[in-house]
């Protein structure tokens, strides 16, 4: 489209001067300008720290805290990235994080969707009690349980292992995911299931072939939130992981920083590597974020 020459499209472009704006609404235009100015300032505050982080990840140690600060790295170097990936076993941490997040998400989605189906579609004595107990898990913050969980993990032989991360992440994610999915399952018309029953389909078949396919949006939401939560989790892994080769990304990044004089370039190169997949997932699956936030108590 050669829209630049088209008078209609020019009118909608911002910054074309007062002549092209609707003349009888000067006040509205001023309001819109103020609105955009506020939004741009706010967005800049949100985004510039990330931009500066990206910039620092390309600086050598000499320039990371220089005054005046360098906004465009000069000379720019990719040594931090090769250093993080090569000499610091970063590929290993990335794989660890990926394995933990994938296993956690798969197990959690399987168990919570089964529970959600059980709670949504069956009546049995004690159902309310069990469901309330499960919701109690929504109100108890993870950190409150970290001491007894540590002792339990020690007793179960789960300390210093990726399995120890996965099982506790799964357990912690069950209340929210079950809550989210139960609401969605309950909204699926019962008549559909009754029709399948008449055709002789058992509960497992209905769960697998009818309910799960219909609940794809809710499953997507639960998948994304569970994946990101386990990808970013820090306190529990800090507590139980001691062997360097079993570290996940957040732990490794924190330890880069923990050394005597912080190698900020290295820290932020590692951070960029850890954050990029998250931002990609967020950009691609945005609408599921909104759904998740508005359908329940998801705190980011």
């Amino acid at each position, binding site marked *: 489209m050669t829209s630049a020459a088209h008078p209609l499209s020019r009118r909608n472009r911002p910054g074309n001067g007062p002549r092209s704006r609707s003349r009888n609404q000067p006040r509205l235009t001023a309001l819109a300008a103020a609105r955009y100015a506020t939004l741009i300032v706010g967005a800049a505050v949100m985004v510039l*720290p990330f931009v500066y982080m990206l910039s620092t990840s390309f600086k050598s140690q000499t320039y990371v805290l220089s005054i005046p600060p360098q906004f465009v790295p000069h000379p720019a170097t990719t040594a931090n990235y090769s250093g993080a990936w090569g000499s610091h076993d970063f590929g290993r941490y990335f794989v660890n994080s990926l394995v933990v997040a994938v296993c956690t998400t798969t197990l959690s989605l399987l168990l919570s969707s089964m529970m959600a189906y059980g709670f949504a579609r069956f009546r*049995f004595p004690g159902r309310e009690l069990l469901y309330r107990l499960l919701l109690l898990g929504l109100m108890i913050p993870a950190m409150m349980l970290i001491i007894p969980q540590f002792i339990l993990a020690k007793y179960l032989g789960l300390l210093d292992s990726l399995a120890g991360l996965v099982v506790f992440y799964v357990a912690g994610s069950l209340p929210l995911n079950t809550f989210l999915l139960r609401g969605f399952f309950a909204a699926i018309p019962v008549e559909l299931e009754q029709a399948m029953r008449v055709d002789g389909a058992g509960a497992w078949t209905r769960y697998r072939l009818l309910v799960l396919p219909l609940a794809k949006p809710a499953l997507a939401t639960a998948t994304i939130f569970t994946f*990101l939560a386990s990808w970013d989790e820090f306190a529990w892994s800090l507590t139980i992981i001691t062997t360097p080769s079993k570290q996940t990304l957040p732990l490794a990044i924190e330890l880069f*920083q923990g050394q005597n004089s912080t190698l900020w370039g290295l820290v932020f190169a590692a951070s960029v590597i850890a954050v990029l997949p998250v931002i990609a997932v967020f950009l691609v699956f945005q609408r599921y974020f909104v759904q998740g936030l508005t359908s329940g108590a998801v705190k980011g």
Partner: protein
Amino acid sequence: MASFSTSVTQRGAARTALAFIAPGFLLFAVLIIYPMVRAFQMSFYDWNVIAGAASDFTGFHNYVRAYHDPVFWRAAANSAVYMAFTVPPQVVLGLLVAMLLNNRAPGRALFRVLFYLPVVTSWVVVSLLFQYLFADSGLVNWMLHDVTHLTAKPTPWLAGRWTGMAVVSALGVWKGIGWSMMIFLAALQGVPKELMESAAMDGAGPWQRFRAVTLPAVRPAAVFVTVMLVIGGFNVFTSVLLVTGGGPADSTQVLLTYMYQQAFKNLDFGYGSAIAVLLTLLVFALSLVQLRLFRSDPEEAP
């Protein structure tokens, strides 16, 4: 749901339901409910971490100790300060941004993404980033001292209690605005356009329209956001641990970092558990008070 399950025999239904629920619920019971009970129990013991060694039952000793522990009270005060510094700005600014974005203006989707970016980024990364920005020769001091000359000399942000809390709070607000914005955006979709228009026709100004139409409509969402943020405020941990480490000299400890230090640095599991229990009770009590105050149900919102 009811008509469906009545057609199934009660016992058969119960058995099938249990098959669906049991695996997940057992895991939840062992790894979440059992530790919950254990936390209460441990808080009454002088807990011995050595396997097999006996732990002494000491009654309320750990709680009495907290009562006489100045660092515990400072940590509690810091948690309250963090809450006071982070909750109101997140509610107000979140609503403001949501209202600015609540129309079909171009660029809306982009702004929504930009404001939400800090929310999806890991606490570890943004905590280190803020530590870097607020370093002695960091970007913030450069702006305040070298560029605008607002400060006579670079501020050692992380070397003092109040400046340290200010940095941690700023991080909390910066990271949280996107979340409250999203909740408010969803709530604002429920405000009928006709109501706004008819209020405008009747001569209501922007402020009157905000008070009479917008505010009542977003009230449940505001209650929900406030309750969640207060709970979240008392749960601040990673950012404090990584930005100030609770220092200097325990001056910026919050309840959870202090609990963590007692348990995993001093290996005093009993005292750590007592702090965790006190914090849980405090959060529960505060949530109940807020819900009474607002007379609304958080499960209805947003």
